[in-house]
């Protein structure tokens, strides 16, 4: 016995609507993914910058008080750069002598991301004691 089927299939309009809906969904997800990727990469750079700053801060806290900075003149004491993942991170250390036995340490790290300048800064005090 031969059975006949109705093989009508999708119309072009149905296909077009389906593809449009799928395209909208994919586009939405793509946007979110791209934003997420940019955000994660930005945080990666921030982490690199922060570690670059923190490592110097730890070194300075272990340094003899008189060996830190130029007395009484608040200015950039030292500048250093390092390249990580093709990005250049520049670290500026500023020392301000607040009192005879108290100095302020500001460490700023600057880098460029998506064509824009970014920076992070950490600060602390160090005493002679």
């Amino acid at each position: 016995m031969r059975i006949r089927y109705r093989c009508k299939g999708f119309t072009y309009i149905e296909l077009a609507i389906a593809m449009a809906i799928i395209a909208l969904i994919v586009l939405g997800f793509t946007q979110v993914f791209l934003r997420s990727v940019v955000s994660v990469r930005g945080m990666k750079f921030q982490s690199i910058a922060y570690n670059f700053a923190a490592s110097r801060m730890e070194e300075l806290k272990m340094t003899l008080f008189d060996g830190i900075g130029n007395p009484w003149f608040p200015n950039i004491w030292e500048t250093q750069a390092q390249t990580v993942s093709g990005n250049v991170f520049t670290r500026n250390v500023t020392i301000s002598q607040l009192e005879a036995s108290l100095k302020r340490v500001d460490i700023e790290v600057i880098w460029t991301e998506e064509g824009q300048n970014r920076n992070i800064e950490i600060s602390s005090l160090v005493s002679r004691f």
Partner: protein
Amino acid sequence: MFNIRDERGVALVLALALLAVLSILAVAMVFLGRYETTFLIKERLSDSALYIADGGVEYALNELDKDSDYRGPTTYGLGNAGDFTVTVSTDGQPADRYQITSIGCVPTVASPQETRTVRLLVDLTEQMSPVFEHAIASQGNITLQGNAVVNSDNPQGEGDIYSGGNILLQNNATVNGDASAVGTITTQGSSTITGEQNPGTPALTFPEVDTAGYITEAQAGGTHNGNFVVPGDINLGPLFIDGNLVIQGNHQVTLTGTVYVTGSVTLQGTPEAFSFTGSETLIANGDVTMQGNASAGIPLVISVHGNVTLQGNITVQGSVIYAPEGNVVIQGNPDVTGVIVGQTVTAQGSPTITRQVDLTGYPLPGGGISTITHVSWREL
């Protein structure tokens, strides 16, 4: 028999199910990414707050060096980086142990996003310039005449004297302690030195007077232009007097803050008696004169450029008298308990000078933290 009609629409169901699963996975990944980002931001701010808090500990150590009575709380801003609030406590701690607690806040103490708290226990030992470890010390000569007696309070027999020049004892002058001089030591008549005599001893450095610090402390209470004559019983200080300070008659004056006098200080009690007490510092650019039947008990009396004269029957209790550029002259029958340090020191008549051995807490020039031992550091 296999009937294919039963499978109609299965593809749509499978496709929708797959799409749902993929959507859930995608949303989960997006949220995970956002969570990681938020976590990293918080972690970075938190680490910044830790450095801010650590800065607060350093701030407190510096303040304790200037004044061991410092307790805070102090809130201090480090620009855009953050603020810290630091306090110091000795409650429940052994002697000389200080507990420093510092809270670091980012970005501000008023509206913190992240806070870290650290606590440091330290043992601080205060140092004292060795010139104050004598009953009498001078950069130049020391001359003791008549029936002058030098001793110490507790224990007795440690009324040591030091001279950056020569020491001369005449008549019945007595030193119950050691005598040390860069130059010579001479005893004439019935004068006596009960302890060691150390001529040719190494010179000591006399500490400078931080006049700017005292002026700032005094000016915090205001400025009086012209001579200040004490009108009666009074609580005095902090006060900056651009002139002379005069106390005459039977008045009770209590120093309640640093008093800085640009001119001279004269305390005259004859024939009445004045009483001059307090726990603060009296400092004058010019001469300081105390005379009459009176008593004075001020921890630190400084004449920056002038002379100090003690006359009559005046009683001085627990005072360090410091005249690094002037002569200290003691005449008559003064009874002095404390320490006398001057460019030169001369005692005549029958004065009694008793060295106060324990000067703990005295705000002496050249003092500060000598040793610091970190006992423990922990984060709360």
